[in-house]
């Protein structure tokens, strides 16, 4: 059997799975194929309302790397926020800056908290060096401003995710390190939520530890 015929079989097995166990097994097999032909089906699985299968599909997409980025962006499910959250998580893990605008939009205007959280966290980690050098500074500023905006959210978990994003940005984009450290100080004086405050403290400690090594 050719490789492509084999992948088609694996894809069909997912489509025809008629139980949770069969679905999980078939998605695991498809993900393990490491084939780009599996990408559309893996993305479809994100919308099957089956967390075990979705997490497996996310891992499979991440393992496929850059080739999964454009399909994820193009097949982003406008109607199913669960699928969208998984897609955003995959894009955040892939850290490809081609996802920047999608992540910014997801972090600021998506109605689903799970999507906003995943996007806020992912924005800080983008692989800036994959951008043309002349675009890097502007992209980093855009992310910084976006995360500052996300920090205004009334949902504590989203503000928490903004801190995680800001910590990552401060580390990956050295021009933002000092402004973000100042921001953290300001936030501590106005943030009332104990979980968010703790995360700001941890972010400060982590950044100080890294600067100390340098």
């Amino acid at each position, binding site marked *: 059997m050719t490789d492509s015929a084999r992948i088609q079989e694996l894809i069909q097995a997912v489509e025809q799975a008629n139980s949770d166990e069969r679905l999980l097994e078939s998605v695991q097999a498809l993900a393990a194929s490491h084939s780009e032909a599996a990408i559309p089906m893996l993305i479809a699985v994100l919308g099957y309302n089956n967390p*075990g299968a979705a997490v497996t599909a996310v891992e499979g997409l991440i393992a496929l790397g850059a080739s999964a980025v454009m399909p994820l962006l193009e097949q982003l499910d406008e109607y199913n926020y669960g699928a969208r959250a998984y897609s955003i998580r995959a894009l955040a893990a892939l850290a490809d800056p081609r996802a920047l605008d999608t992540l910014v939009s997801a972090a600021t205007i998506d109605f689903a908290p799970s999507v906003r959280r995943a996007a806020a966290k992912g924005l800080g980690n983008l692989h800036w060096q994959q951008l043309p050098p002349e675009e890097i500074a502007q992209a980093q500023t855009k992310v910084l401003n976006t995360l500052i905006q996300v920090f205004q959210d009334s949902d504590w978990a989203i503000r928490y995710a903004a801190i995680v994003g800001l910590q990552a940005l401060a580390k990956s984009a050295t021009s933002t390190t000092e402004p973000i450290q100042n921001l953290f100080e300001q936030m501590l004086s106005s943030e009332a939520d*104990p*979980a968010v405050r703790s995360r700001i403290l941890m972010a400060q400690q982590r950044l100080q530890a890294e600067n100390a090594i340098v």
Partner: protein
Amino acid sequence: MADFNPEASNEAAPPLTVEEAIANLHGTDLSLRYYAAWWLGKFRVSSSAVVDALIEALDDEADRTELGGYPLRRNAARALGKLGDQRAVPGLIRCLECSDFYVREAAAQSLEMLGDPAAVPALMQLLNSGVAAAERVPGRPHLQEPCEAVMEALGTLHATEAIPLIQPFLEHQTKRVQYAAMRAMYQLTGEDAYGRRLVEALQGADVVLRRVALSDLGAIGYLPAAEAIAQASTENSFKLIALRGLLEQQIGSDTELSEGAIRVMNLMDALL
């Protein structure tokens, strides 16, 4: 937990101003009053005028269901728990004797939120008939008494005198009732075994029950559950809320982070 949805956005509620909500609460349109009571609680409008109006609404006779329930009283009782005003306590204690199960349940939940131990004797009364209180009422979708809400409240209110009353429910056939008893017993005795049993519940086959166990573990702040919570088979939003409960118990001084706090936050980061 009845109307809690961590995926829902605040922006979905039709907008009211505080003045409109208060006016509606005092008005004659029953559905506007009902909505206003909900709205004031949801948006935490805690001015004393609002609290006064909601306390009055606990005795409302105008809004009745066909089965004899008191919808406005239910929403008023629910809202008062969120507004943090202790003046609501006596009215809520009286609500524990209301003929409407949902009013009794809302009152128990709100009394838990307000934290006044004066509520304990009236809460314990509701468990006086023993495990029979957790039997289903024929033809109705609820139990005789709101046992979960009552036991949870007794746990939060440190009512150690209620331990003998709660113990029989640990083996109840309804898992939700068992979990509420475990949660309360952990809070009242500090015994690790109760926390461990709730962690085991995270392996259960029913996703709704797994969410209930998560919520209970978060409420008691049982740190040993951290990794099990992070790996539980539920949506991440519920896991984050449970871990937050653990984190709140770990927070000591304002600038020191305990190992437990760091451990929990690392798990939370991975769930975003």
